[in-house]
């Protein structure tokens, strides 16, 4: 039975895959563990696009490497290849045809990794670590977009060493997302800029941040016609803002919600507030997943404004997450995110990437009419 098909008894699939630990809080959700996880914190995860058969997962880590696994239908993961940078890898993405992987690193370069030949070559250079990298496929051009801590956003044709375009940002790039023709970049000091990518990339609007604290992650969502219409922005303060670009009624349509906080029922003890490390939207249902420093992931329905599920608490923060192209698999990485500084960093602690069947749990809540 295919574990990643539609409704399968996923819970039973975990018997032989990992050890028989009973009260093991490293995987309380009993999800499938990816074999050969990186040796240091995982900074990013990305699944292959639908143009490629099968599911391939890439993960970049602070151990300077980016690894590729094949995820088979029965849930087995097979490590396929890896590439190295000279600095920690902060972000990675696939090209639209699934043949290349682009990786961005603290060594101020971005590389293009051709999976067929297993060769990687440098395609971008910045003055500071590159925090975000995305592939843009427009009707009249294709390029790589890199956002860096040197406060620039550069666009690269992979064949040329000079950027096609370089845009100045007010502050360091902290996170970005691209869904053609829209790109959103969130910077330090609560900066938020939307770019439009038609014809050539240009700044579309600067937005007053709906959040009070540092931006941490951003993800664009689409409307029913599959056009990007807004984004979800997460901060270090356990809060996500849903923001539409052109809503009919901004005051009503845009909202924020709190997440990744400890149990706040007891009003006499203060809540612990955790950062939202990553947000991903389900490609089919449009519901979203957030993962946080508290070591939990949550699924939400932004239209019904409800929470669909919160996981058990893992013993480490969850640093990255992503869905595969058809939304059947949810991958999340459990590793230290530096949210408590260097004292809590244990280089010996094992890092994990888990895979979960996402077909059922992310269905939007039915309206009760």
């Amino acid at each position, binding site marked *: 039975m295919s574990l990643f098909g539609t409704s399968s008894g996923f819970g039973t699939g975990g018997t032989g895959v990992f050890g028989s630990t009973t009260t093991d809080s490293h995987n309380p959700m009993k999800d499938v563990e990816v074999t050969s996880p990186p040796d240091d914190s995982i900074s990013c995860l990305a699944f292959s696009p639908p143009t490629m058969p099968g599911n391939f997962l890439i993960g970049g880590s602070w151990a300077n490497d980016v690894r590729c696994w094949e995820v088979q239908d029965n849930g087995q993961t097979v490590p396929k290849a890896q590439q190295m940078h000279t600095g920690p890898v902060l972000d990675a993405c696939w090209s639209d045809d699934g043949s290349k992987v682009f990786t961005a690193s603290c060594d101020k370069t971005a590389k293009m990794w051709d999976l067929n030949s297993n060769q990687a070559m440098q395609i971008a250079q910045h*003055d500071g670590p590159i925090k975000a990298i995305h592939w843009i496929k427009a009707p009249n051009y294709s390029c790589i977009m890199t956002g860096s801590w040197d406060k620039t956003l550069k666009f690269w044709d992979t064949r040329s060493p000079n950027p096609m375009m370089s845009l100045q940002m007010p502050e360091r790039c902290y996170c970005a997302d691209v869904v053609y023709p829209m790109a959103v970049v969130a910077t330090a000091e609560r900066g938020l800029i939307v770019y439009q990518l038609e014809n050539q990339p240009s700044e579309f609007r600067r937005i007053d941040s709906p959040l009070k604290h540092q931006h941490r992650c951003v993800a664009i969502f689409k409307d029913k016609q599959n056009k990007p219409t807004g984004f979800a922005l997460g901060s270090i303060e356990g809060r996500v803002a849903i923001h539409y670009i052109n809503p009919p009624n901004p*005051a009503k349509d*845009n909202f924020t919600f709190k997440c990744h906080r400890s149990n706040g029922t007891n009003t006499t003890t203060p809540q612990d507030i955790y950062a939202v490390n990553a947000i991903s939207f389900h490609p089919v249902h449009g519901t979203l997943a957030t993962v946080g420093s508290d070591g939990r992931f949550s699924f939400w329905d932004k239209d019904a404004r409800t929470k669909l599920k919160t996981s058990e608490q893992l013993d480490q923060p969850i640093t990255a997450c992503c869905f595969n192209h058809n939304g059947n698999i949810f991958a999340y990485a459990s590793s230290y995110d530096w949210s408590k500084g260097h004292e809590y*960093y244990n280089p010996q602690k094992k890092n994990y990437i888990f895979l979960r069947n996402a077909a059922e749990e992310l269905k939007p809540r039915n309206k*009760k009419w």
Partner: protein
Amino acid sequence: MPVCSFFLQGRCRYGDKCWNEHPRGGTRGGGYNDNRSSGQQQSRGGGGGFGNRVWVNPSQQKGAYIQPSSFSSHGSDDWGRGGGGSDWGRGGGGGRRDNLKSSEFSFSSQNKFSALGTSNTFDRGGRGGGSGGVSAGDEDDDKKLEIIQMDMDIWESSGQWGFSCYSSFKTPLSGFTDLSPEELRLEYYSTRASGDLQGYLNGVNQLLSQWKNRVQELKIMNPATRAALLAELNGAAPQASSVSFGSTTGSGFGSSMSSFGNKDFGAPAQARSFSFASSPGFGSSAAPSSSSSGFGNTLAAPTQPPSGFGGSSAPSSTSAASSFSFAAASTDKPAAASGFGSASGFSFSSTANAGGGFGATAGSSSAFGQTSGGFGATPAAAAGAGSAAEASDGLFSPESKLTQDELNQFKAKRFTLGQIPLKPPPANMLMV
């Protein structure tokens, strides 16, 4: 049951007691519940500005609704029920506010996050700030300040990341440094590789204490802080506090940035480029009030020696050493913060108005481009050194212009809180 048309318009008076059907997921126009314990819109209790949202008293909730988090007394684990998303609320209103006692807060400095111990209450001023309904203009200044105070409490007690900017009512407040965990981690990795972990540790502790001081300041809200805050909130003086670490090992972060002209994005004229110091001169500089002689090998920043720090950092975007400095923007003139070769040092300046625990400065460092006079051996003049020779009016005050008190403050080993001069020091008082 027929569908309640008032609810669809967002104005059902009965809330959960209504006899008609309130479709969940329908117009979240917000039914106001009059029994809300948190009280009215404008008052404390996070009611301010949530004009369009559903605020239903959770105790009356039958679970069919999304419970706005601000008022829910349940945790967020309520996912079993369809409407159990108890964390939703527009603008993120805070929870029920009980008595806030500042005396309950205490922090130790052993583990930087153990300081964020438990204390009461939480989540109240959590306004997302993004809503039109916030009507910041309607609230009293006092209310605004209260909200800020409460936010500080929450921030302190919640264990959340401290190196974050903070803004209230769309205005970013000065005195906070925005650093992502990744940047800090990269710094750690680089310094670990170069062997100088102590520099990193000092840097982090410095930042941490700066943050704590600032949070304390805002919580306590003495009149000076209050005035400064109100000025900021109303868009007057641009201010930013600054910290800079110089580094010789070249663990660098990006180069400096220039000012944000745009108010939306923060105090103007902040310059920052980041790296931790590796100079042994740091050892003695943990306390902001150490004399600048602690920086044996540093060249004093001509701009501001708050309480005797010769701040210097070797910013260089090209060479490996780059520096992190945020300097306070003065209203008149941006000045170069530092540009030194091998020296490293801390320069710490915060806005005078804030009356914070750091030295006051008026120099800002947006003009990294100003190079003059050779400071530092390296071509790290990328960070424009304001050399002593450059002592223009905007940078220093001539002694004649300073009152005796101010002169005394500059002469003293450490600044006295509340009497920190607002004007820059005279050039000749800098320890070079």
